[in-house]
Structure formats: C-alpha cells, structure tokens
C-alpha cells in the first residue's frame, strides 16, 4: 500500500520528529519505494509459522533483587542539558 502525506504526518507526530516541507515530499517517495520492496514478503505463506522471539533461546535471565550499582547521582547527571539540586530541569508540562 502506498504511503501518503497524511500517513507521514501521523508518523512524524508519533515519532516526535519534523521535516522541512520539501524533504517531506522526498521522504513520501523514498518510503514508498522501501515499502514496495518489503511487500515481497506477502508472497510467503506464513500462517503456520511462529514469529521469532529470540534467535538464541536461553530462557529468562534472572538475578537476585539486590542493588548492584553504587549511587553516584552527580556522575549520572553530569550529561544533563539542565539540572538543579540533583534534579533534571525540564520544560513545564502542566500549565
């Protein structure tokens, strides 16, 4: 199925992305080509094929519920674009 400009707008909102108008037109075309290419999968009958969940089945990996990392707030927050008193500073969410 061909992708439309509306599809792209919907996806851009979901992905929290935006594109300049001229790039949107190009992307609609490029994505259309990629989607047309992946349509070849429809030629395969897969009703009775289980989807792959793990390539190497090792079961669930569990460990005891104990703290294994040392708290080092300063080091962990050192890359924050904005911070204050051990908190991340972010734009206001509620008006």
């Amino acid at each position, binding site marked *: 199925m061909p*992708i439309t400009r509306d*599809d*792209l707008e*919907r*996806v*851009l909102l*979901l*992905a*929290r*992305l*935006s*594109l300049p108008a001229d*790039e949107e037109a190009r*992307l609609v075309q*490029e*994505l259309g*080509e*990629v*989607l047309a*290419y*992946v349509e*070849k*999968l*429809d030629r*395969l009958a*897969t009703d009775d*094929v*289980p*989807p*792959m*969940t*793990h*390539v*190497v089945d*090792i079961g*669930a*990996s569990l*460990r005891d519920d104990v703290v*294994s990392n040392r708290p*080092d707030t300063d*080091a*962990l*927050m*050192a*890359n*924050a*674009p*904005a911070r204050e008193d051990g908190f*991340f500073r*972010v*734009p*206001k*969410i509620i008006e």
Partner: protein
Amino acid sequence: MSLATLTIHELSQKLRQREVSAEEITRDVLGRIESTEGTIHSFITVLREPALEAAKAADERFHREPDPNPLLGIPLAVKDNVITRGIRTTAGSKILDDFLPPYDATVSAKLRAAGAVIIGKTNMDEFAMGSSAENSAFFPTRNPWDTARVPGGSSGGSAAAVAADQCAGALGTDTGGSIRQPAACCGIVGLKPTYGRVSRFGIIAFASSMDQVGPLTKDVTDCALLLEAIAGHDPSDSTSVDRPVPRYSEMLAGGVQGFRVGIPKEYFISGVQPEVERAVGAAIRVFQDHGAIIEEISLPHTEYAVAAYYIVATAEASSNLARYDGMRYGYRARGRDLTETYTLTRAQAFGAEVKRRIILGTYVLSAGYYDAYYLKAQKVRTLIRRDFDEAFSRCDILLTPTAPTTAFRLGEKIKEPLQMYLSDVFTIPANLAGLPALSVPCGFDAAGLPVGLQLIGRHFEESKLLRAAYAYEQATRWGALRPVLESA
C-alpha cells in the same frame, strides 16, 4: 619496518621479549595517525595523552606479570558507539556530540583490564545506520586502498584504521553486516560473533535483537585473540549467554580436511560483480585443494532477508532511539512546550538516514500495520533460521561472498537508500538468524580493491570459522597485502 604495521600477536611477542616497550609502540602508532589521519579520517576522537598513560601503565605491568595478557600494551581502536568512561562517545551523532559516559561498556572494561591501550574512538554511520560511513554526522571516512571510495560501514572508521595501520586492531559492531562488509572493503578480517556471545552492555543500541560487538583485525590469529578477550557471560546483559569461552587462538591449526563446506546457490546471483564471483570461486578451489568437501546447498528464503531486516531493524531502532528526548543527556533544543522541545531536539540533531529509519520503524509498528509488517517479518525470520538449520544439518560451515561488490565511490549510493541497503544482502541473514560469520580477504578486483570471503557457522561455533579462515589465510596470504598510503 614500522611497529604500526605489525599484528597484535607480533607486537605481543616483541613486548614479551622486551624488544620494544608499549610506549614505543603507542608513540609509533600515534605518529602513523598524525601522518595519515588527514587523508583517511578514521577517528572521531584520538586519545593521545590517555593512550600514552595507558602504555606506560602497561610497561609497568610487564615488569610485574610473568605471563601477561596478549593484549597488554597493544594499541586498539574502539567504535564510537561503544561507551568508554570519561571519554567522549558520540555514536557518530550530533545528538551525543558532547556525551561523556559515566561508565564503561563491558567490552571497554575488558579491554582496559587486559591492559590494551585505547588509542581512539572511530568514525561510523550515525547510530550504525549505513554501509559506507558517509552517514556520520561529522565527516566521511576514506578507504585506505582508494581515498575516492568508501571504507564500507557502519564500522568504516574501525576498518579503515586497521587497514591504514592506525591501530593494531579494533572493535566494531554488526547489526546487518557492519563489521564484515567494511572488513571486506578494507581488506582485513572481521568477525560478527553469535548473538549472545559478547555482552552488549554499554553498546549504544540500534536493533537490540541483532546488535553484536566483534573484532576487526589484520589477520585471523588477531581476530581469535580479540574475540577471546571480549567474549563471555555478563550479568548486565540478559541476552548474553552463560557458556565457557574457548581458547580460540589455540584452536586455529588443524586445517579443513573433511570439513563440509556449503555453497548457498542463492548467494551467487546476478548483480554480483564478476571479479567478486571469480575471487570467491578461486577460494572455493583452495578449500577443495585442502581437503574440504564442497557441496552446493540452498537457502531458499535468502531473497526475503533484506526486506525482513529493514522492518525488524527499523522497528527496534524507532523504539531504542525514543530515549533521545533532550531531557537527561544529549542535545536539547528550545521549544515553546514539551512536545515542541522533543520534536525540535530530534529534528535538529538526528541526520537524514536516522530520521528515515525512525519514521519507517514507527510506521511499521503503528496501529493497524503491526501484523502486516512487524509480525510478518518475525515469521519470515523463523523461515530464514530454518533454512540455516537445514543447511547446518549437512554442513560445518557456509561459504559466500561478503558483499556483492568491492568498495563503491563516495556519493555513489548515498542518494538511493534502497541501493545502499542491498550492499548488505549477503551479511544480513546471519544477523537475522543470530549466527557467527566472518569476512577474510580473498583477492582483489582489477582496480586493486580488496574482495571479502564470508564464512558462516553454527551458533557458538566461532572456533570452526576461525580454523577454516586460518587455513585459508595460511594458504593464500591475501590479507598480508597492505594499502600504500601517501602521507598527508
């Protein structure tokens, strides 16, 4: 002869015999980087001072340790999506331009514990999305064999650095061929281990069900040594597998007498450069001459692999890259409200290919499309895995070209995403099935560009791949040829 041209095992021997010091080696390699980096552009960050300090520390360890690790004092490069404590790590993206990791990836910690000298962080396609290193947000890397051509990708910086003797060996990551294809393009050895063999803790995630870390090296012996150093179970990565790590470097001899080598006919298709086909054909005869049993086999779902891969990989990428929201680390733009802040942050700091893949991944996962795309692709993945199970019931290893062509020109495919994706047509199936696969040099085309031979093995049978590649390397020595570089 310059120390920089030597392999890891050659350098290690010289260090043990006290013929040279780690500091001399590191200085020589830094000198090589200085004289060639203006031409090749392998590194996003060169770690001159930290490397010299690590080399001096290694020299002190040589005095204390009677049986030093083979990586002690060896200068290695690390791809820039492998996090390194306190050392800038960008994943080739503007969104992580000034990111200083607060901890080490498990593989970084293992290299440091072994006493390796981390000489720099290598250039790559942004978030490992690409096959040419042209999608780096910083600059493209050049192929040391012909600087008008790409080194392959996404681990293009690591491959070029090894080929240009800017390091003794390097780490890369491989999600759809990102170690093997650049290794082929640059005439070196590259191995993608079995999914779960090497810890992914601290690897900046692209497609988590396929990402693996692996070595890029000047020969097969080095590849075994480096794999030995990074493999093993890690409680911090729930997909890493708790199995003993074999001493790969001690299992190289023995040859391929009686090895059942499968040649999948679907890998010898139109569109493969004739010189690549000829070089791989000659390699098949070398295996035959050394006692291997050659058998044509079929992997019937091969032609569906790229399509399944681009659904699964983009879906996982769109989810993994949702974390780049400008709040806790990385670039942040200023918007009027939260949604606009997120949107501008991501729109300004992600490159074109990353956006393209996030958009495709978000689309295939979105309501109403999930079954048609993602579920379908995961089912096709099962079919591809079954093809391999069937082949490995009869064969020890499979032999194919690594890539359909030798290194292409800069700019040649960057405007055609689908053409770029098809450079990974022979490497992607091993990622979809979680299998180990390596690329070893097998000749040159008429333009003097290296050709790569791919060997694919059963899960956790890296030792068999390395043994076959070693036998081939000893018989041919293609990998001993190095590019001639004019100093910049």
